[in-house]
C-alpha cells in the first residue's frame, strides 16, 4: 500500500481508526490496585519518620499550624463522641475515595495505632509521601495531652515540661493528673465536651471556605 496516494486528512483518519481500534483493549484506570515498594516502606518505618507523637501534634494545634490535615480514622460515632480538634472524620474504608491531594501532609490517628498503621500503609502505597501516624493514637492523646501526669521522682526538666503540658491540657479542656494519682479516665464521659471548642489563634482553614480550585 503506497501511503503517498492518500491526502493528509485521509492519513489522519486512518491513524485515528487504528489507534481507536487498538484502544479496544485498553484499561486506563488503575482501579483499586496499588504498587508497593516494600524496601522503601521498610526503611521509612525503621528510620521512624513515619509518625509524630501526641505531644507534637498538640503543639502544632496550639500554634495554629494549618499545613497538614488531621484524619480521624474511627467510625462516625466515635468521632462525634470526641475527636482531636481540627480532625476530619474519614473511616478507613472511605479513605481511598476521600479527596486528598498527593502533596498534602496527612496525620492519621485511630483509637490505638493499628488502624492508623494500616491506613498509613495504604496511603503510602497509593503514592502519598507525607503521611504520619500519631504514635499511640487517641490513647496516647489522652495520656500525654489531655491528662498528663508527673511521676513522683521527676527531675527539674521533667517538672518544667509537666508545667507546659498542664497548660496545653487546659487548652484542650483536659487537666493534669495529680502526681501518682488515679489512672486516666477511660470512658467518654470524662473526655472534654466539644460544645465549646478551645479558642484557637488561627484556625485551620475549613474546607468550605477555601477558594474554588478545580472546575472551570
Amino acid at each position, binding site marked *: 500500500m503506497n501511503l503517498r496516494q492518500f491526502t493528509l486528512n485521509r492519513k489522519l483518519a486512518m491513524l485515528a481508526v487504528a489507534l481507536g481500534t487498538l484502544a479496544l483493549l*485498553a484499561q*486506563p484506570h488503575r482501579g483499586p490496585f496499588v504498587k508497593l515498594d516494600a524496601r522503601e516502606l521498610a526503611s521509612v518505618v525503621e528510620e521512624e519518620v513515619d509518625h509524630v507523637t501526641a505531644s507534637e501534634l498538640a503543639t502544632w494545634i496550639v500554634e495554629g499550624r494549618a499545613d497538614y490535615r488531621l484524619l480521624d480514622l474511627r467510625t462516625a460515632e466515635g468521632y462525634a463522641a470526641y475527636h482531636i480538634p481540627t480532625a476530619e472524620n474519614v473511616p478507613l474504608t472511605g479513605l481511598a475515595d476521600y479527596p486528598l491531594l*498527593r502533596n498534602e501532609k496527612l496525620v492519621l490517628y485511630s483509637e490505638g495505632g493499628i488502624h492508623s498503621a494500616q491506613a498509613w500503609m495504604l496511603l503510602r502505597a497509593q*503514592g502519598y509521601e507525607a503521611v504520619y501516624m500519631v504514635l499511640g493514637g487517641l490513647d496516647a492523646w489522652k495520656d500525654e495531652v489531655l491528662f498528663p501526669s508527673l511521676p513522683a521522682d521527676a527531675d527539674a526538666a521533667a517538672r518544667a515540661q509537666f508545667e507546659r503540658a498542664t497548660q496545653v491540657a487546659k487548652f484542650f479542656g483536659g487537666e493534669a493528673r495529680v502526681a501518682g494519682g488515679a489512672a486516666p479516665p477511660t470512658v467518654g464521659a470524662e473526655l472534654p465536651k466539644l460544645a465549646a471548642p478551645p479558642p484557637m489563634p488561627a484556625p485551620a482553614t475549613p474546607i468550605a471556605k477555601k477558594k474554588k480550585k478545580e472546575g472551570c
Partner: protein
Amino acid sequence: MMTPLYKYGFFGEEFSLLVAFVLGLGFGFFLERAGFGSARKLAAQFYLYDMSVFKVMFTAIVTGMLGVTYLGWIGWLDLDLVYLVPTFLGPQIVGGLVLGVGFVVGGYCPGTSVAALATGRIDALVYALGIFTGTFAYAEVYPSIKDLVNANPMGQVTLPEVFGLPWGLVVFAVVVIAVVGFWGATKIELWAGSRP
C-alpha cells in the same frame, strides 16, 4: 509513573500558575490558528457552510481521549487523579441549550472571545462585557435558583460507567463516530456551499 505531576507534589501552587499561563498560550495559539478568533467562522458552524468548529473540537477531544487512554494504560498517567467535573444532568442540559443560543447570538464562547479580543475584535470585547454582566446577574439570582442549579447530581461519572461498557469500547465508538462525522461534515459543507 508519578503523573499528574501537580497531584504528586512535584511543584506548588505558584508554579502551577505559570503552568496555567503556558498552557493557555498553547490553547490560545491553536484557537486562533484554527480561525476561532473570528465570530463569522464560529457562527458559520450553525449555518452548515463551515463545520470547522465541529472538526476542531472533536479532533481535540479524540486526541485528548486517545492520549489519556494510552497513557493510563501503560501506567504513565494516573487517570483517577484527573479532575472530572461532577455531573448535574438537568442543569447541564439546560446550560448547554442556553450556551448554544448564546453562541449564535453572540458569535463566540468564553474561550474564543478571549482569543478574538486579543486579536482586536471589538465585538468580542463587548461580548466579554456581556459575560461579566451575565455572571453578575447569575451570582445575584443564584441563592434563589440554587436548588435548580444543583438538580440531578450524579457525581463524577463517565460514559463507560453509565452504559456499563468497557472504556476501550467507548473510545473506539467515539473515534468511529468522529471519523464518520468528519466525512459527513465535509459533505454537508459542500452541499451548503453550493446552495445560492
